[in-house]
């Protein structure tokens, strides 16, 4: 995938540099190269923040999409099948859905309780010959198991999303720090030359402002995707609550 992507890019860049780029004199790159070491450090930090936050964004988008796909498939199977054991068999292949976690823990609790209350030989040695329905000892325990699983799943979904919030609130400040530092050095330069000519003042300030621009560049996608992703986590959580209710209803109907 990466080779396919990078080849046209390289060709395109070659074409660009061959035709137009000779005339470039004041670009962003020269501004960056001209700036002080502190500004470079700030830019490096912001670049790192941006890289990591975009990595998290892509990762979360990817996993969430898989989760949603698996969830719809799982719900489809869950509602069509009559036996929990059938659903349990499918769970391995739909591992990314958070509902699978809920179902597995609920099912584990259910089987553990049923094994205790109705040992296998008791069913066969019934004097009346009727099939004794296995009963649950405590529905509240199943509910608790579902709650535990739900907490685990939400934690897993939310994991690493706070980094985006940190980036969103921190990156503008880092950029601002770089800008302020650059302006301090620019004013020192003005003091040394003793001239307030705009030609002396402006380039230093332009250098300094690149840091703010980089900070905003890192922060804006982080804000956007933080809100979007946490909203999706909320949706997943409500979906899980809904599923837990459904599971409890089925358990109550069949095993009490």
């Amino acid at each position, binding site marked *: 995938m*990466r080779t396919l992507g*990078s080849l046209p*890019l390289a060709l395109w*860049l070659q074409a*660009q*540099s061959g035709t*137009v*780029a000779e*005339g*470039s*004199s*004041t*670009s*962003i*790159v020269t501004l960056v190269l001209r700036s002080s070491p502190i500004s470079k450090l700030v830019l490096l930090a912001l*670049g790192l923040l*941006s*890289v*990591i936050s*975009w*990595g*998290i*964004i*892509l*990762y979360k988008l*990817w*996993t969430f999409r*898989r989760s949603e796909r698996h969830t719809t498939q799982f719900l489809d199977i869950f509602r069509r099948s009559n036996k929990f054991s059938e659903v349990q068999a499918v769970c391995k292949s739909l*591992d*990314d859905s958070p509902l*699978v*976690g809920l179902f*597995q*823990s609920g099912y*584990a*609790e259910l089987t*553990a309780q049923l094994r205790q209350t109705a040992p296998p030989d008791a069913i066969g040695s019934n004097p009346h010959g009727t099939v004794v329905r296995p009963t649950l000892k405590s529905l509240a325990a199943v509910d608790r*198991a579902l709650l*535990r*699983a739900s907490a*685990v*799943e939400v*934690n*897993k979904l939310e*994991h*690493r999303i706070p980094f985006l919030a940190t980036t969103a609130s921190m990156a503008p400040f880092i950029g601002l720090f770089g800008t302020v530092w650059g302006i301090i050095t620019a004013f020192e330069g003005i003091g040394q030359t003793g001239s307030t000519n705009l030609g002396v003042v402006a380039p230093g300030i332009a250098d300094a402002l690149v840091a703010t621009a980089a900070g905003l560049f890192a922060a804006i996608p982080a804000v956007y995707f933080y809100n979007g992703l946490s909203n999706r986590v909320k949706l997943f959580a409500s979906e899980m609550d809904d599923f837990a209710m459904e599971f409890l209803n089925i358990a109550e109907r069949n095993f009490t």
Partner: protein
Amino acid sequence: MDVGDVLRDRMQEPAGLQRMIMVSCAVHTAIAVALLFAPARWVSHSQEAPRTVMTISLGGGGPRSGGMTAMGDRPVQVQTPPEQPKPREPVRPPAAKTPEMTVPMRNARPSRTTPAPSVKQAPQDAKGRTPTRGPETRAGSTVAETGTRGQGFGLSTGGGPGSGSTLDVADFCCPDYLLLMIESVRRSWNQNQSNAGQVVVRFTIQRDGSLTDVLVERPTGDPTLNIAAQRAVVLTRKLPPLPDAFPNPTLTVHLNFQYQR
């Protein structure tokens, strides 16, 4: 399998974070490289030659301009020569006194004088200004430079009251060219419409005189007026090349079409 075992299994995150960070790193590097090689005009502002924009009004000329004079709305004047001061008359000695002892005539009538009418209002001309001698504005047929600036080119359809326009012809190098342009636009303009209205059409004259980017900038409610105005510019098609005295490569004109019923 216990609930705890299930939960422990489920706690593991799906793999792929490192791969996504690698992808993100690659994309960032690509953007940085693209910035490195991008031509400067992508990131900084372009430095094109300034484009001249002017607004000209068609229809509704100024008062008494009668249309197509380069002087536009300047008042038409004749220069009257200043009046020569009257030559001083020599001071005459007073007439000799009549003898005191004259005999009055018995039948002489007393002379009657009519008193002058009392002045209630100052004459119009004398209000608040000192009467002057010298050049004075009067209606006439001669054109004189008075220094007033023209307000567009009057091309009146019906001689009705014209609205203002924003062309400052005095600053433009070649008013003759504009006249030519307006005359050719007017020739292809169908002024006889059922409604009154005002349409501003914007277009650009290229160096070679071709008209491009024709656009109704401020339409009126009646679409036929808009179309007629746009047609007028489009049908003009080609003008003589821009004059050499005009420095810029293009001339953008906002032409104001005023329809009067």
